[in-house]
């Protein structure tokens, strides 16, 4: 199992390096380019949320990103010092029509729809978010 850790300041200009790390790891795990993109998106959503909602503003607060891979599996763990927030709670079923589409609340849904497993824990005053995605067998041929 390969793994890597990145510590970033909680600032939006750090997002791309997080995505680059995730993309590299997803490629290593043998994911299709579509799956690699989806993983970047899910993790970006989570990190954007930590910065925007967790830390509340763009200040110098650290976020730790740890990725580990084995063939066909990508694990990402995000750790931050912001107030507790559990994105696996409070998910409301949304009903929307084309005339009244949702304006917000997309980020968490995106994370859940991309990742196979989303787990949250609060430990030693920190938020830990674990995301796991497994390669789809069917996508091997299409990408």
């Amino acid at each position, binding site marked *: 199992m390969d793994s890597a850790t990145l510590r970033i300041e909680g600032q939006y200009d750090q997002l791309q390096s997080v995505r680059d790390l995730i993309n590299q790891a997803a490629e290593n795990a043998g994911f299709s380019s*579509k799956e690699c993109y989806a993983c970047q998106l899910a993790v970006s959503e989570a990190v954007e949320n930590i910065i925007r909602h967790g830390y509340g503003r763009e200040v110098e607060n650290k976020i730790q990103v740890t990725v580990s891979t084995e063939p066909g599996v990508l694990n990402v763990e995000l750790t931050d010092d912001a107030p507790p927030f559990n994105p696996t709670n409070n998910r409301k079923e949304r009903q929307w029509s084309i005339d009244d589409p949702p304006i917000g609340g*997309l980020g968490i849904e995106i994370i859940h729809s991309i990742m196979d497993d989303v787990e949250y824990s609060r430990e030693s005053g920190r938020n830990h978010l674990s995301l796991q995605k497994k390669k789809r067998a069917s996508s091997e041929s299409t990408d």
Partner: protein
Amino acid sequence: MDIQTQEHKRVVVVTVQGRIDSATAGEFEDTLNEFTQQGKNNIVLDLSNVDFISSAGLRVLVTTRKAVKGAGGNIVFAGSSEQVLETLEIAGLDVLFEKYSDREAAIGSF
């Protein structure tokens, strides 16, 4: 992110290159707001060179769509990258935006 705008008689074309995430969505939104505030509600978006868009970008798309539709306009796509389509699909919002094969067709749709 790089934004170029072009104003035609009844249609504005907004071309974005690069990444639309929380770092850049504000600038993207400002550009679009400037047009809608001037009553320019027929918008063509060329996102064919956008290689990443997160929900921060989708939010701008959806709010702008709401604004222009309310004013009798529309916001349509003239070519969009695989990545943009993928994010829209994952979010289930791909049905919201008419997509044209190129800028010509998109401008012509108004």
